[in-house]
């Protein structure tokens, strides 16, 4: 009966992305939490601590902090956003409903990726705008620094997106998702060089943070936004851009395998 008609993969991807974006922006809490909260933190912390210290002579702490907040903003838009919303959608039955349709599984994830791309770019734009307007943040100085910025964005958001999708299967139900995901994100932000200078953090916490992507995202972003010679504030005294790419790349592989192993379309108590 259906001969002559065909379903376009692109149309489905667009329909899913549109549905994701609409759903996201109509939930006021998720918009405030994901997009505005990092900006509020930036302005707040920037106003309190920004002008007190210098990272190196001539470069105020706020530049270090903006780079960290960019990293945190990227993680919030991808990891927290997906880990929480997918857990809630699974709980509400959306995933089960979709599995009962001819929807190609991949298009669900493509819709999520479309949402994350939009939200993360908006988060970057808002944070950069505030940084430049309120705290005289200097943008990356040359093409090389912009390229590293772009690389951290792509690799970091990809890794965090995959980990967010995978993590969404851990909470027992939708309600418990925020209280499981948010503490992890906040702790990582404290030890990964977002709120404090990473090299000032105790060694064992540094080592813990170095296992996860956020520390490396922040480090790569600092390379992009701080003067070259600020590398003396890094633990190794180097920017380690290659290592940043390597660790984030490994996390992409880990996240992908984790997704493939653990992703569930139904609630755990639904058999």
């Amino acid at each position, binding site marked *: *009966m259906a001969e002559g008609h065909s*379903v376009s993969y692109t149309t489905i991807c667009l329909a899913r992305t549109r549905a994701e974006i*609409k*759903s996201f922006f109509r939930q006021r809490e998720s918009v405030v939490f994901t997009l505005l909260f990092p900006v509020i933190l930036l302005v707040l912390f920037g106003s309190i601590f920004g002008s007190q210290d210098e990272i190196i002579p001539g470069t105020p702490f706020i530049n270090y902090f903006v780079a960290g907040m960019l990293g945190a903003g990227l993680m919030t838009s991808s990891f927290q956003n997906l880990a929480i919303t997918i857990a809630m959608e699974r709980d509400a039955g*959306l995933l089960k409903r979709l599995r009962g349709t*001819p929807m190609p599984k991949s298009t669900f994830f493509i819709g999520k990726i479309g949402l994350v791309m939009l939200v993360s770019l908006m988060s970057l734009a808002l944070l950069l705008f505030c940084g430049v307007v309120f705290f005289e943040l200097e943008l990356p100085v040359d093409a090389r620094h912009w390229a590293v910025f772009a690389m951290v964005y792509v690799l970091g958001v990809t890794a965090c997106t995959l980990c967010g999708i995978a993590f969404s299967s851990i909470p027992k139900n939708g309600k418990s998702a925020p209280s499981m995901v948010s503490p992890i994100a906040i702790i990582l932000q404290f030890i990964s060089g977002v709120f404090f200078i990473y090299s000032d953090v105790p060694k064992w916490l540094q080592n813990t943070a170095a296992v996860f992507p956020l520390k490396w995202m922040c480090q790569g972003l600092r390379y992009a936004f701080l003067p070259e010679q600020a590398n003396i504030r890094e633990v190794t005294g180097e920017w380690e851009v290659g290592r940043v790419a390597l660790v984030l790349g490994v996390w992409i592989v880990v996240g992908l395998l984790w997704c493939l192993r653990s992703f569930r379309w139904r609630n755990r108590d639904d058999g």
Partner: protein
Amino acid sequence: MSAVEVIGLTKTYHSKSGATQAVDGLDLHIDVGEIFALLGPNGAGKSTTIEILEGYRQRDGGEVRVLGLDPQRADSGWRSRIGIVLQSTKDLTELTVAESLATFAALYPDPRPMSEVLDLVGLGEHADQRGSQLSGGLRRRLDVGLGIIGRPELLFLDEPTTGFDPEARRHFWSMIDGLRAEGTTILLTTHYLDEAEALADRVGVISNGKLIALDTPRGLRGRQTLARVSYRDASGQIVEIESDTPTQVVRDLTKAHPGELAELTITRPSLEDAYLAMIGNDDG
């Protein structure tokens, strides 16, 4: 031609507290174009059976063919020929009715026009309302709308009218008649026996994972052969007489009581009586 063919289906759940045989050698056959109602108490294996047919669950044993294919090997071509209305949902809260329908229409090769779906499920006036703003009954209509948007050959309806007011249920029944006229095969589960009676060509009763009865609603009712004659006697007591010859009972009564018999009724067993007798009044 059969839409659903099940032979010797078995499914056991294993948990820490032991194994539960949810489906235990179930046979089922549903013709194309038929409306089939599956009844049974909670925990009888209804949902497990349906979810195996829908391709959500793997079976342990037996043969299953749904629209000629094994649901365990279901591909998107097969999925575009079936429609599923799940039991209870609370998703799609932020999208409007029209947006949800449009999102799902994109998944099917030959979707119904949105206006047709809105008409069929009676959501025309609510097209611009968000899912979160819909009452329970209207949400259920949206579920049904999403289930039929792809013009399914086979539609699964799992307790579709739970939470409906009587008018909404009537409306829903006439919608099912419309789908029947189009030749859609429907597998329905319901707790409302009048619903099964009004809609279904055949009814299957499932208990302890087995099909214990399979008949037309009328045939099923007929299994409970005793009719009930009741009246109020001179002392004001209700007297009930069960008999397979109620006419003779009335004849004898009128002979014995020359006057008018107070509150005289003759009741034929309802499907509910037949059903309750069958599952041993154990509607857990």
